């Protein structure tokens, strides 16, 4: 096993440097510190789920720095984890890294070194980087890096990524190895027993004979296969190697067994034994308790009564706050939009282009932007909870509850993130080890009330639910309604998950193994960055998809139709208004004729026809054709409905209320027989429909990507749409009877 010689590296390829380490040891923080990039970090094991790379220059060397998801060992149980072994062995599609930086936590050094020693058995040169050096309780508990490095047989560097300390030393150590000026790895340590090492050396012959491109890594692969019975590496090698490999493997294992070394236990025992003895030499004290702050906070936040109460209070408070705080903010945005419309109206003569700007662009896109403050607030809370370390506690608290639905606390963070957006939520399920559990989590994640639903909820609730306060002003009725409708998907997800776990995904009960990190002060920079990123996502979405839909809907609502008479009348009307003549019979006549024309034009347009066509489908839910069109247009992305409704009501609205915004237009809209469209039952059925329907193409695409099959997005779409319709129907019927 000779390390791949760096001199082979041709000048046209940068050196690949990979960050590997246990979850939550600060790999992404270190990656950001070294690269100036903004990979997501958070105080929760399993934040990074996809590798990310950055191009850098260290002392004239071109470097490609790679940040990887965290792992506790190189005994992969899923193809995703197998990627780490393939990468180290150079058997993946991408070339092996030229250097691995093993990121360890100074607090749990013993556990971190377990993975490091496994990595050091690979052919790739290794630097052991002890991060979070600033968190060591005392200098007493600090190992001497040089001494530790000598015993380990690898360069040891200490860093505090969060404070940008130790970075230069790390870069220098890396450059020394890449330049080939560091001592070579001739002094490689043997961490396992001689029998295991010999067995690996023997199997190596077969592997290097049968597996292409594995010369350097043959012994590493053989060892990984040997120590992890029925693991991914064994399966991989069994496929490539001849029958003699499997036969030798089982012979070796049984002879090891008789000498008292059963696998995989012996690997752990021997490795930890070795690390233990090394640490005894370099550590003066072993301090084995969490930080004082963590102990104190946990005794409250994890208390069986108080802790649960706080948990509930936190999430109730989040939803109330979002409502309270954002109402004035949204009013502000609405006022600005009103001023823009006003400005355009006063500067341009009536015509199709003015209508496009005011009714299409401002009314559509703008109506949607009003909700940006809510979205930012939601992301603020989620980022805050994650970065302080509470999310892992919440997962611990709810694990029992989730186990009823056949899931575990591991599903909590993916589901909680789905309250912001199902796309990152579904990606976060990669940390769920059990495949069936992960599939079920993916399928119920879209039921969580994502931030794109929030605008619809806030619009409808703010317009039609009376503004009352409950419990002596502690809660508002609107806040409570928002909380309930946001919980609806979650509540239905429980039986749905249970059903899936009993039918399609039955079998192997879920498990839960999670490290609870120490509490850390959330970094405002990280939190703000998260908000800005998601706000930008949201706005750029509004800028493209929503903008395009607004125009499309405007066009469909304006054509075909002869608008000459209307525009002429509108010009006359505005002239009358301009001279202050608003009481004459002439003004009255024109206004009435205009309203008739507007309504007729909208009905006769493509949009009106489409609405007419689909109305029977949505009639049983209590909706008129305008809502039907809105819902139809929102299947690609649910937030589009706000833009559609904005445009529809602006186009078809009566002239004297064009500028009062969407809310009053909706309040004023009536059925043909004069009864208001939006009575509480219809509003509730619309809310329920949006809570449950799969109106998001991005989510379906991510489901396809994460499950590598079209079956599941199709399944998800069909089941959720049917569920939404039925639930909305029941809501309409029942609330019509009750209210």
């Amino acid at each position, binding site marked *: 096993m000779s390390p791949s010689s760096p001199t082979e590296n041709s000048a046209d390829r940068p050196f690949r440097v990979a960050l590997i380490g246990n979850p939550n040891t600060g790999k992404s923080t270190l990656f950001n510190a070294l690269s100036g990039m903004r990979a997501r970090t958070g105080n929760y094991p399993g934040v990074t789920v996809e590798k990310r790379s950055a191009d850098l220059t260290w002392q004239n060397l071109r470097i490609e720095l790679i940040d990887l998801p965290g792992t*506790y*060992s190189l*005994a992969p149980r899923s193809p995703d984890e197998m990627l780490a072994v393939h990468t180290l062995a150079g058997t993946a599609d991408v070339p092996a890294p030229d250097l691995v930086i093993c990121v360890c936590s100074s*607090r*749990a*050094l*013993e*556990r971190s070194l*377990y993975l490091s020693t496994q990595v050091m058995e690979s052919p790739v040169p290794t630097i052991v980087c002890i991060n979070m050096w600033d968190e060591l309780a005392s200098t007493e508990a600090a190992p001497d890096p040089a001494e530790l490095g*000598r*015993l380990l047989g690898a360069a040891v560097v200490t860093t505090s990524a969060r404070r940008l300390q130790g970075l230069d030393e790390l870069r220098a150590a890396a450059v020394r190895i890449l330049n080939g000026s560091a001592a070579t790895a001739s002094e490689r*340590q*043997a*961490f*396992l*027993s*001689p*029998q295991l090492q010999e067995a690996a050396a023997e199997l190596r012959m077969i592997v290097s004979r049968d597996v292409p491109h594995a010369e350097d890594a043959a012994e590493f692969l053989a060892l990984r296969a040997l120590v992890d019975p029925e693991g991914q590496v064994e399966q991989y090698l069994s496929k490539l190697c001849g029958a003699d490999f499997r036969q030798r493997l089982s012979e070796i294992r049984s002879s090891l067994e008789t*000498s*008292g*070394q*059963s696998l*995989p*236990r*012996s690997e*752990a*025992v*021997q490795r*930890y*034994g*070795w690390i233990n003895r*090394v640490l005894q030499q370099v550590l003066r004290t*072993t301090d*084995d308790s*969490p930080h004082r702050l*963590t102990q104190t906070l*946990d005794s409250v936040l*994890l208390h*069986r*009564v108080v*802790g*649960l109460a706080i948990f509930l209070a936190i999430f109730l408070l989040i939803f109330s706050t979002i409502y309270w705080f954002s109402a004035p903010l949204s009013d502000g945005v609405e006022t600005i939009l009103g001023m823009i419309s006003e400005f355009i109206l006063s500067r341009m003569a009536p015509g199709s282009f003015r209508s496009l700007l005011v009714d299409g662009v401002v009314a559509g896109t703008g109506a949607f932007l009003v909700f940006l403050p809510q979205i930012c607030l939601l992301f603020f809370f989620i980022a805050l909870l994650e970065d302080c370390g509470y999310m*892992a506690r919440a*997962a*611990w*608290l709810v*694990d*029992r*509850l989730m*186990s009823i639905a056949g899931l*575990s*606390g591991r599903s909590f963070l993916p589901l909680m993130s789905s309250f912001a957006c199902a796309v990152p939520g579904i990606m976060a399920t990669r940390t769920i*080890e059990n495949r069936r559990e992960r599939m079920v989590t993916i399928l119920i994640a879209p039921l969580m009330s994502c931030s794109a639903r929030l605008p619809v909820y806030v619009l409808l609730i703010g317009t039609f639910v009376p503004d009352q306060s409950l419990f002596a002003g502690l809660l508002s009725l609107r806040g409570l309604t928002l909380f309930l409708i946001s919980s609806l998907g979650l509540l239905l997800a429980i039986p749905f998950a249970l059903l899936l776990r009993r039918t399609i995904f039955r079998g192997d*009960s879920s*498990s*839960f*193994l*999670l*490290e*609870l990190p120490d509490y850390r002060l959330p970094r405002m920079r990280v939190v703000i960055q998260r908000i800005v990123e998601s706000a930008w996502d949201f706005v750029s979405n509004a800028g493209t998809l929503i903008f395009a839909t607004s125009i499309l809907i405007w066009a469909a609502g304006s054509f075909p139709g002869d608008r000459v008479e209307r525009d002429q009348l509108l010009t006359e009307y505005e002239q009358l208004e301009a001279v202050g003549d608003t009481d004459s019979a002439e003004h009255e006549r024109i206004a009435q004729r205009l309203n008739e024309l507007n309504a007729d034009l909208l009905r006769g347009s493509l949009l009106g026809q489409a609405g007419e066509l689909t109305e029977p489908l949505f009639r049983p839910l209590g909706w008129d054709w305008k809502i039907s069109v809105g819902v139809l247009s929102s299947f690609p992305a649910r937030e589009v409905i706000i833009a559609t409704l904005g445009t529809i009501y602006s186009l078809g609205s009566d002239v004297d209320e064009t500028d009062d915004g969407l809310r009053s237009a909706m309040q004023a809209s009536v059925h043909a027989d004069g009864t208001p469209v939006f009575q509480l039952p219809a509003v509730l059925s619309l809310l329920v429909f949006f809570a449950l329907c799969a109106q998001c193409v991005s989510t379906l695409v991510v489901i396809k990507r994460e499950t590598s099959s079209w079956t599941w997005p199709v399944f998800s779409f069909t089941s959720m749409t049917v569920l939404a319709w039925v639930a909305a129907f029941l809501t309409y019927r029942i609330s019509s009877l009750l209210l």
Partner: protein
Amino acid sequence: MHLANLNPGTKAVITDVTASTAGSARLMELGFLPGSAVTVIRRAPFGGPLLCRIRNASIALRQADAGLICVQQESCCTHSDACSSVAQETMSSVVVPVAELAAH
């Protein structure tokens, strides 16, 4: 005695980890090994997961997984259930490479 039966706050030493499927392998990677000190910090309400302190990390694990781990309380040494007798065997039969270290 199993880890699952330990009272919160008591220190104990692991005597054996029942070999089962992938579950026990994961536990061992995290350091749940014969001879290691472990403390149950607290239990989640309604029979939920335990929170343990092992090798300077707080690990949450379910009662079912904790049932795979046999322990002996530090204070008393008169426990002689089936669990610990198996453990004696495993502990004595562990072969560890001391030679390499001494070579340094």
